[in-house]
């Protein structure tokens, strides 16, 4: 069984690791222990600034730092970074296209016990609607680390989503190359394509194996960059497999499913079936039963894949 690491752990470790190589500062809003920016704080206390429980101020402070030439990471839970501080992200960071990297952790229902108020399921929709914003959702710890370095080297605003829950490591740290805006082909297939993001990528790989046992050939694509989305790989999948299933830990409205449907509708119309949280708020609980409750399971993904194939003309 693959090693499991939460992407937030990888985020904190990456900040501390790359702190030696790159000049950047890190802000947090009283959640350094949870977002894991505390790992960076311990190593580089002079480059870490706690903003207290004031996320809106933190994002605007980050904009000011960036306007003065600093590369800035600003962290909180996705709910507060993308939700509470949406307008600061839009107007202080997005509009002037400033070099702020938003490290948003504890996204999705895998927050678990804290429940609905803390389970952000709308961040992709909010962030990708901001012009010029890059939106990245790594699938595992390897990709999370690589995405942090890519974000440092990219000039402009980036929203990065990390999870609280430990998920399987699917990429090799020494060989994996991450590129902003590039989807990754995980398996080839001809009957259907599962386009997944974040923790759903490893589930998609499991679903493809089950489908293969039933004689269905499923291609799996990892879309870590929700925006700008890799149109080429999605249209290639639409053309070559004729049906697409999307999988994400986000409301089915406005996230990966919507982004993929937009590309497919305009470029190569084929059935797109979306799997995600079906326009509901979250709930408290342990993660495995929560995933069952919201249908974020390998079994549901298999069923959705079959449904997409059934919609082919």
């Amino acid at each position: 069984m693959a090693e499991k690491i939460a992407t937030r752990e990888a985020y904190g470790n990456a900040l501390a690791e790359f702190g030696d190589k790159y000049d950047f500062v890190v802000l947090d809003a009283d959640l350094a222990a949870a977002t894991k920016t505390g790992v960076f704080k311990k190593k580089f206390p002079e480059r870490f600034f706690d903003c207290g429980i004031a996320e809106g101020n933190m994002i605007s402070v980050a904009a000011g730092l960036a306007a003065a030439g600093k590369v800035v990471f600003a962290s909180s839970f996705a709910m507060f970074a993308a939700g509470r501080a949406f307008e600061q992200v839009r107007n202080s960071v997005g509009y002037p296209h400033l070099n702020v990297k938003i490290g948003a952790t504890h996204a999705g229902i895998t927050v678990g016990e804290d429940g609905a108020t803390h389970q952000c399921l709308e961040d992709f929709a909010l962030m990708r609607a901001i012009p010029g914003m890059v939106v990245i959702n790594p699938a595992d710890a390897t990709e999370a680390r690589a995405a942090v370095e890519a974000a440092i080297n990219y000039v402009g605003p980036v929203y990065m989503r990390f999870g609280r829950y430990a998920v399987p490591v699917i990429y090799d740290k020494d060989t994996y190359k991450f590129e902003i805006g590039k989807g990754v082909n995980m398996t080839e297939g001809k009957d259907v394509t599962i386009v997944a993001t974040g923790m759903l990528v490893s589930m998609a790989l499991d679903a493809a194996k089950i489908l293969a046992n039933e004689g269905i050939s499923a291609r799996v694509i990892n879309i870590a960059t929700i925006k700008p989305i890799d149109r080429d790989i999605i249209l290639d999948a639409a053309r070559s497999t004729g049906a697409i299933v999307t999988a994400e830990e986000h409301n089915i409205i406005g996230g990966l499913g919507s982004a993929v449907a937009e590309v497919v509708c305009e470029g190569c119309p084929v059935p797109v079936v979306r799997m995600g949280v079906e326009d509901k708020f979250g709930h408290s609980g342990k993660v495995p039963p929560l995933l069952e409750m919201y249908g974020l399971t390998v079994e549901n993904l298999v069923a959705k894949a079959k449904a997409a194939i059934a919609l082919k003309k």
Partner: protein
Amino acid sequence: MEKEKLNCLKQTAAQIRLDIIEEVHAASSGHPGGSLSIAEIITYLYFKEMNVDPANPTWEGRDRFVLSKGHTAPALYAALAEKGFFSRDELKKLRQVDSFLQGHPDMKGTPGIDMSTGSLGLGFSTACGMALAAKIDNKDYRTYAIVGDGESEEGQIWEAAMFAAHYKLDNLCVVFDWNGLQIDGPVTEVMNPTPHDKKLEAFGFHVIAIDGHDFDAIEAAFEEAKTVKGKPTAIIAKTVKGKGVSFMENQVGWHGSAPNDEQYAQAVAEIKATM
């Protein structure tokens, strides 16, 4: 202040008032009241206080300015044009599709603008970020911001105040433009944010209260601010909304409306009479 220098600043402030009226009249839209109230403060900042270079607007060593009350951009645009950041001809194109002078300041499009603002409450925080950057990099530039009195009803203003004091941003000087009026009426009646002096002192600021139209007082306040160590300075500037145009003074209605041709002619005549 020397008489000659004082006279020169007064003339510049009058020119900026004239520009404000020209801009808003040409656009048939904009915010004259709060632009006129900060004419002396913005004149002093750009023509005496701040170290900026119109030929190199993004020079790293420059002092920074954030107009947190971004709707009073006509005053800022006038100061930048008079200073030489761009042609005065541009002022007549305020708020038009072929102009870089947006309804609210845009740092990407307009030379000399250090931060895009307009959504109230955000600018003060961005000024904190700039001041913190100077501290991190051991640079000696200073950061200035102007916050509106109505704007101080935004919670983020007080988050920023907490932040500025916590990080001992003594290179930050924030002017509160106390003109007393906001869209829905007198600030103290709409949602009273006073007393600013006691509140800001309690937040950890060095507070100076002045007449915001008196250049000697403005100079003394900015000079005093530079001597303060370990804490940020807030200058509470008592001003008159619509100052310099008789029918606009202390009138809520001139917060965000443009003069017609007749009103424009009268405003211009009144301002020119002071020059």
